[in-house]
């Protein structure tokens, strides 16, 4: 190892890599990336959680791989190299899902494959992993995937609760309410409502985090 002083693994600087994307630079609510999958897989809670975990694995793994390779990648073909790495990880995740949670894998269908095109992953590889060591790159991947996953799970929670009256496919709204005239909100199942839910989350987040509000 070199003579330079080694940074502790969980130094404040490194912890920031995890904390920041969860709130201040959240990939969905602040950078507005990865919206498509936030609409597509959030009608139910289960697929949303599986999707979040898949993205977490792919993101962390490809961040580390690219970070290891970063000095060997010719700049002109770096995008292709990044894509190859992501695609490999996605196929691995897809096969694991098919082997162990086949039902959920069917529900997610094409969207697992489409993790390849998730702009958050490409963005982090380009912006962070290409210029940083493997450990910070790993933390950055985890942080961004968590920021993405938390929003996905919040959206899915409200969409499933209000749209189907269930959580994890178990009925949580008492039958008595239905007898009383309560009806599930069909609009929550439709994709537009996911966008509006994202909008509400952004609203709440900005209400509590004043530094996010642009001054104009």
């Amino acid at each position: 190892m070199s003579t330079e002083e080694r940074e502790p693994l969980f130094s404040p600087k490194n912890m920031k890599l995890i904390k920041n994307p969860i709130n201040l630079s959240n990939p969905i609510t602040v950078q507005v990336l990865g919206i498509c999958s936030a609409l597509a897989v959030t009608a139910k809670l289960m697929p949303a959680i599986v999707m979040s975990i898949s993205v977490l694995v792919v993101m962390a793994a490809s961040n580390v791989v690219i970070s290891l390779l970063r000095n060997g990648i010719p700049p002109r073909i770096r995008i292709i190299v990044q894509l190859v790495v992501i695609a490999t990880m996605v196929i691995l995740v897809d096969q694991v899902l098919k082997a162990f949670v086949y039902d959920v894998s069917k529900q997610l269908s094409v969207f697992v494959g489409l993790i390849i095109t998730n702009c958050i992953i490409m963005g982090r590889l380009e912006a962070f992993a290409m210029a940083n060591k493997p450990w910070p790159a790993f933390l950055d991947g985890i942080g961004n995937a968590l920021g993405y996953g938390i929003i996905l799970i919040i959206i899915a929670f409200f969409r499933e609760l209000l749209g189907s009256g269930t959580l994890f496919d178990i009925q949580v709204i008492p039958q008595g309410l239905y007898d009383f005239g309560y009806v599930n909100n069909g609009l929550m199942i439709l994709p537009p409502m996911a966008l509006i839910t994202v909008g509400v989350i952004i609203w709440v987040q900005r209400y509590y985090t004043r530094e996010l509000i642009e001054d104009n």
Partner: protein
Amino acid sequence: MKALRNFLDKQKPHFEKGGKLEKLHAMFDSAETLFFVPDKVTSSGSHIRDAIDMKRTMITVFIALIPALLFGMWNVGYQHFLSYGESPDHFTMFLYGFFKLLPIIIVTYGVGLGLEILFAQIRSHEVNEGFFVSGLLIPMIVPADIPLWQLAVAVAFAVVFGKEVFGGTGMNIVNPALVARAFLFFAYPGNISGDKVWISDKADAFSGATPLGDALVGNFDNFPSVYDMFMGFIPGSVGETSTLMILIGAAILLITGIANWRVMFTVFAGGYIMGLLFNLWGANEYMELPAYYHLIMGGFAFGAVFMATDPVTAAQTNKGMYYYGFLVGMIAVLIRVFNPAYPEGMMLAILLMNVFAPLIDHYVIEGNIKKRLKRLKVISN
């Protein structure tokens, strides 16, 4: 009037800055301006003002809605008793509809104005009159049996996401009343579509399909006469059935100059021409329906007169209004005939064109600039 003025003047200090009821100033403001034209004058910039303010504009639309509303109340009762084969006197029918609609109107205004006042307080601006008309429009475009809690949710959604998030009255992109209806339509389709909901407390054996519902499934045997549809003796949303009453409202709006004739006229023209085109095509029985049927069925007339003309969400330029109105009419009839899921296309057509209105305006203005630049070049050459 004098006594009222004195009373208001006496209460005013309580609501001004430092008064003990300071927090409720928005409510006081709205009550005061209801009776008196505000005495505020412009303090800077342009001093040119129209003689009527927003409150007077809104009250005119309100008056224009009254004929259709009163007829709607009667019709709710008429349809109800008809389904049982009874025919009591007109006053009984009116009273039945009146008591059906009263809770709907109260809930709409209660929820809508409550939220408006809340937002006005938080953002410390005065309560706008925008909801005054929306609050009457919403009860007129829903079935009389709509569950009140669903209505309340829809109104709250419309006020918050249709209007307040864009900055309140005058800043909204889409018509809030239609947002409320669209919300109900997609969220709780069981209570606002199909052939069970359009007659209040309908007898089970009686077919409650609207002409639009009949037309969509190709059932033209019991189609109501043109006279019935024009006068409004058909099932449907409360305010939409009577084309005659809507035309009276339209006359009030046009004579007072509140609504723009360009939009109103082109919506009817667009719908009629689309109907004619379908006549030419004539692939099925629905397409062969006389084109003017489309103008008197369902909510077409109501949408054309009261919804499409909303000055905030319609196109602003004169030329743009022609395109806007024409497309509203065409798309409404297109959706009716082609889309099996939506018997009525007026709501969706207006919402869609609301979104496109700024784009239309943009191109109209760009076109004008280009034309004038050309003229400038010719002169300078």
